């Protein structure tokens, strides 16, 4: 049936891992159980994360409701502070990280031809920690004194002031939730890295891996290198808060700025943990929807690691005005700006991929193009922020808020939506409705632009971030932003409608609806539990060989027929 397997770096013991869950693929109950199938876990992550996107979005609209007028009139300022802290925390730790883990779980095994993740039980454990720490975090709304309200940075001394003096308080629950989230991410990272290194299909050398796999590897290595710093910092903060130790407390000779180093040593790389897989999604989708090979595959692949290495040595750009000595500020300005180089390589490669292509403006492609457009903008404001004298003015103002929302929402969330639409047919077996998808895109693009573009000017004029009230000269920018935020709220309706109705009653999806090249597209939609089962394909070339006479795998026809038969 299949020609001789040339087994490279493939561990056959792993194929034999049996699915411990007995029931068939149409049993919805498995989504509520400790299931160890990466495809089930992926969907569990994504659905949970989207639920928290709604909660975080609701908080965002309360925030924008307060800020639509200059005075603090909707909430008491203490409430405002709790809301924005929880908004940021939920969006990062309950929406973005989990949803990316979800996409990674869905995509990594099929894309490299593995039956499942290397450690399926750990995988399920990593997921089930998400509802645990999410509930802890949400419970903090109901403890006396309210939730954590010192921002997602949680800088001491403000974070350890504990006004009510109670042992159990919002900040304490916040620290516990973040630490559990870190543990979940570390487990996930070990799993992803092992799976990618050990379980690739025969023939899939590093330079034949899809770019998404490259970016996941780069991102997950960053998690492993960076998270211990955050977790360490969080534990010390916990001790200072709860047991009165003095790691960061000046009363006992501690240094509050030390926490900032711990925090940013991880949290700067964290933004790349989030954006790298999205770079991966862009690199997968642009070739498909312009029907051209990815321009400069090797450069794009290696650039991911350039970004990984550099992003470990730039964290002080968040501390240019904390009393950091001159030499350090200059040094970190240089390293930060260097990141623009590998990032630029990717941007130019994507544009060159589009150039002369046969562009199909499907919903996923629209989200990719919108995301790339916004990313170019956010990258440019990033370089401005890296420029010390400019940052001394706009740092900690709305300019920063605008910059990172251009990246985090207008790029990362756009890329995630693109990925969800693109792979929706593969993993649900149903086609989504293009019309609703396009409405979702249009509302999202308009809302996001109106929300965050004007805020750059508020920041340039000197409006600090995290304020509950502001001087009237900033009102115009804030009114526009609030309208944008409400449009974004409306945009969630066509999205939810589309996802739910197409999954329930959409048209059945063929194995390869986009005529894409990639191992996952050689599988039936949805793929069987162990993906390729006994017939692991042998990879011959790198993916993306659109229009080139280079077959992707040995005996491609066999897999195409097999994927159709299952259907």
């Amino acid at each position, binding site marked *: 049936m299949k020609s001789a397997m040339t087994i490279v770096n493939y561990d056959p013991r792993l194929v034999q891992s049996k699915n411990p869950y007995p029931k068939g693929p149409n049993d919805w109950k498995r989504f509520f159980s400790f299931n160890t199938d990466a495809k089930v876990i992926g969907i569990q992550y994504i659905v949970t994360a989207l639920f928290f996107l709604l909660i975080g979005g609701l908080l965002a609209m309360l925030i924008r409701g307060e800020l639509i007028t200059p005075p603090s009139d909707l909430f008491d300022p*203490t409430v405002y502070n709790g809301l924005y802290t929880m908004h940021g925390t939920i969006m990062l730790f309950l929406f973005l990280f989990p949803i990316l883990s979800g996409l990674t779980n869905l995509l990594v095994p099929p894309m490299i031809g593995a039956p499942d993740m290397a450690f399926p039980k750990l995988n399920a454990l990593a997921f089930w920690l998400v509802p645990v720490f999410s509930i802890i975090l949400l419970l903090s709304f109901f403890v006396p004194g309210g939730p954590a309200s010192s921002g997602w940075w949680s800088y001491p001394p403000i974070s350890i002031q504990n006004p009510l003096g109670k042992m159990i308080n919002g900040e304490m629950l916040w620290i516990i939730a973040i630490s559990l989230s870190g543990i979940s991410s570390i487990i996930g990272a070990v799993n992803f890295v092992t799976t990618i290194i050990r379980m690739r299909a025969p023939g899939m050398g590093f330079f034949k891996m899809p770019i998404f796999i490259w970016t996941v590897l780069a991102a997950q290595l960053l998690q492993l290198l960076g998270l211990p710093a955050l977790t360490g910092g969080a534990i010390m903060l916990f001790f200072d808060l709860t047991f009165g130790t003095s790691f960061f407390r000046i009363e006992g000779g501690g240094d509050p700025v030390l926490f900032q180093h711990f925090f940013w040593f991880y949290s700067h790389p964290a933004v790349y943990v989030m954006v790298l897989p999205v770079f991966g999604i862009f690199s997968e989708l642009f070739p498909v929807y312009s029907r*051209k090979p990815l321009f400069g595959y090797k450069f794009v692949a290696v650039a991911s690691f350039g970004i990984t290495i550099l992003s470990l040595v730039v964290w002080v750009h968040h501390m240019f005005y904390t009393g950091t000595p001159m030499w350090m500020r200059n040094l970190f300005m240089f390293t930060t700006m260097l990141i623009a180089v590998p990032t630029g390589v990717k941007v130019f490669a994507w544009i060159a991929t589009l150039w002369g292509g046969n562009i199909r403006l499907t919903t996923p492609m629209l989200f990719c193009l919108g995301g790339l457009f916004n990313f170019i903008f956010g990258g440019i404001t990033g370089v401005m922020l890296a420029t010390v004298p400019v940052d001394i003015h706009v740092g900690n103002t709305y300019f920063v808020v605008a910059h990172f929302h251009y990246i985090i929402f207008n790029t990362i969330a756009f890329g995630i939506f693109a990925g969800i639409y693109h792979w929706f047919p593969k993993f649900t077996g149903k086609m989504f409705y293009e019309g609703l998808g396009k409405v979702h895109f249009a509302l999202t693009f308009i809302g996001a632009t109106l929300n965050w573009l004007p805020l750059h000017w508020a920041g340039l004029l000197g409006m600090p971030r995290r304020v509950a009230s502001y001087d009237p000269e900033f009102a115009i920018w804030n009114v526009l932003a609030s309208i944008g935020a409400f449009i974004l709220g409306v945009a969630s309706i066509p999205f939810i409608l589309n996802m739910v109705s197409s999954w329930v009653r959409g048209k059945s999806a063929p194995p390869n609806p986009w005529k894409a090249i990639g191992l996952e597209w050689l599988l039936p939609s949805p793929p069987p539990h162990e993906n390729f089962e006994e017939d692991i394909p042998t990879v011959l070339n790198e993916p993306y060989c659109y229009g080139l006479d280079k077959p992707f795998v040995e005996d491609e026809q066999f897999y195409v027929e097999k994927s159709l038969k299952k259907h």
Partner: protein
Amino acid sequence: MNTKIRRIKKSGFSKTFIIIFAVILNIILSLLMGYWSYSWLPIQASEAAHYVDNLFAFETTIGTFIFLGCTGTMAWILVFNRAPKYDESNGEPLEGNLKLEIIWTLVPLLLVLGISTYSTSVNYKLENLGSKIKYDYGAEVPFVEEKKVFDYGPIDVISRQWNWEFVYPNGIHSSELHLPVDKKSNFRLITEDVIHSFYVPAFRLKQDIIPGSVITYSLTPTKEGVFRLRDAMFSGAYFSENQTNVIVESEEIFYKWIKETVKKELQNGLNPAGSLYQKRLKNGNRGWATVKPAPDPKVNDAGIKSRPHDS
């Protein structure tokens, strides 16, 4: 496929023409944007301001060129390279171009090296930040000898949850910061509780104030007027109210103010958080927990809360 090849061949000459035209247009728009960008910033009221604004305008110009170059190309592609309905054929199978890839690695590299070298030189020219000296909690704030030259000071800038107080060398206390124009003034930045940030947008300057440390800082205002001083590092419940005014005056008026203020009795200074907190208590102390605001500062010049500001 055939039509595409024809399209490419036909346009050899007009293509170069279009590219040259587009680049020129882009340069013009970028220069205009850079010029326009000065108007997005507050009044330039310190020596640092024009360096910052020039750097920002320079980056806006370069940034606009790159942004329009990239997105213009994308727009071009979207107009001319759209696949007709049901056409699922492939585009030109270009896998890469080493020369191009090396160029677009090197050009950004040189560009960012240039920007950061220039910014470094600006940093050395301004040198606002002096030294940062740690001291024991509860101890007297140590006197730090500023090694750099300055014309006036040191003024103690005391930040709290949530008010500002300024103590002048002759011992007077004020709720607003009065400064002589065109003189380099020196400060000792002090906080009595959490981290705050001394931020005057019109000066383009911001410096965090760290508990347990005293930081010396110098700046030269270059324009008379009233400018907002805003706390820029989140400092808790009434953070957004933690603002006051910087009043830059001619040397003559400044010394007159000093002379007159010395004679004034100490009185309660600006403390907007204090009155908001009283209101909250009156309404039943609803909301989430907060530490109590610091008591009203005792100052010789109580300042004017709603003084109109220039920026």
